[in-house]
């Protein structure tokens, strides 16, 4: 089994990039990934033995980010607290402008496929949806974003 340290140093930055581009919020992405990695560290003997430890961590990270976002929404409602508008630096801001029009589900699927480099079956496991739903979501996103998502070797 791979050590936690080796897995962590290889996957961390890619996971942050995937979640930032899924949520459009660096703070939320960092919170989700760090929380998920800390949980994975705690139970690494189990998680590390899984077929896809990264898939497990993505699932936990996405769920945690969702919870934090919900809590923020509640705080906004109860305390009239302003939710900061995502201010994405440099290249990520440009990318975000391109993918912002996608639905949340489409963005998650697209980022897990093209940034996290996961297979459709793995994405289905992460998001708790069938492989067919992953395919059709990707197809819809491809229709919308066209060349940005098309593989170079495709006609």
């Amino acid at each position: 089994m791979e050590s936690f340290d080796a897995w962590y140093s290889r996957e961390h930055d890619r996971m942050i990039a995937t979640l930032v581009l899924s949520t459009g919020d660096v703070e939320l992405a960092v919170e989700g990934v760090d929380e998920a990695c800390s949980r994975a560290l705690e139970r690494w003997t189990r998680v590390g033995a899984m077929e896809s430890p990264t898939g497990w961590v993505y699932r936990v990270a996405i769920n945690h980010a969702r919870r934090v976002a919900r809590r923020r929404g509640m705080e906004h409602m109860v305390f009239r607290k302003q939710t900061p508008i995502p201010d994405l630096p440099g290249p990520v801001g440009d990318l975000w402008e391109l993918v912002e029009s996608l639905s949340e589900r489409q963005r998650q699927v697209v980022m897990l496929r093209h940034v996290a480099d996961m297979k459709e079956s793995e994405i289905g496991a992460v998001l708790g949806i069938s492989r067919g739903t992953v395919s059709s979501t990707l197809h819809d996103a491809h229709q919308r974003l066209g060349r940005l998502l098309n593989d170079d070797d495709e006609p």
Partner: protein
Amino acid sequence: MSQLTRLSQALIDEPLAPRPNVDELWTRSRRRHQRRRSATAGLLALVVIGAFSIVKIEDSSPSSPNSSKNIAASVQLASYYRAAGAVSNSTFDAVGLPSNVAVPTKVTPSISTVATNGVVSYVGAEYCPYCAIQRWALLVALSKFGSFTNLDNQVLSSSSDAYPGLASWSFVGAKYTSTYFTFDPTELSSSTPSTNGGYQSLEKMSAAQQRAFDKYNPQAGLPFVDMGNHYVTLGASASPSVLEGLTLGDIGGDLSNATSPVAQAIDGTANYLIAALCTMVQGTTPAICATLATHVASKALDSGVSPTAKNSSATVAPTQPPTNAPMSVWKKWSDEMHAFLLAGAANFRAPNSACTISRIDVTGRKLTEPLLGVPAGVTEWALSFTGKCSPQNQGNGGL
């Protein structure tokens, strides 16, 4: 490689946020546990205060010694999981022991499985639809003896198996706390197909769990639930069909509706599991062990026969009436004899392991003249067997 992959590579090469070191992750983990403990303690205090206030206001309202503990411990679970822990004793009693729910099998502990005495083991898989329904029943039953956390890994059973796409969750990462016993769940595979045609593997059984699995589950079927090496369930105790087309929220909502098919299957199974779990309790037993449903289920566990199973009275051959009894009595006797033989045929196993039975028939014949004290006009029933024994056993008594 897509353009998006290329563009995002810059974000990986020049990360947007620093990577915390492992020590910082451990610190985060410790803080999380502290927060959880504080939240639980705070909520427990609130619940105790709330419960005290309610008792003061309504002296007549019934109290449950476990309710505050269960409520406090289950707050971290989503509403549908909380619904599983909130099934009331009156619902359990109303559901009872439906005839379509299998009775757990009594097993004998042995020296080889001593390490799992006092342990509730679950072995299943995320793709497995039978595991989907058994998980629910386990959750309902175990929630009466302790509390779960981290049950947020939602999964769908395989889309290509029987009962495709049932809504469930995975026990991977789940934690269970109880003063009565340990819960050791293992999900062997995910619901993600692997390249070799099966499913991607997830967890492995511990050596002790593997020993119990091999001993009590020689067919290696899933799910397997072992309650302290006293009782086991092999496969689903009820049909997963009741979950088809339902969301987790639908299922959670139906659990407290005693007449719903979901409650009949899941709470009905939980009644047996609770009775079996009560046999593992040492010292003071929780209140759930004293309910009517648990009492009846305990008796069924001892006998191995569901009190509501069809033809349950057919386990004893009916007494032949006197020859001069009215025809209505003979008709009833004939029906009972038919049921008795059907039950016998259904449970028949060849006593000689070298012989196999390919067919058993229960055939009726209306007597045209009295035979052995049975008057003419009564239908007499007989069992007939078709099978074969291996050549070296022929002539040694057959079946």
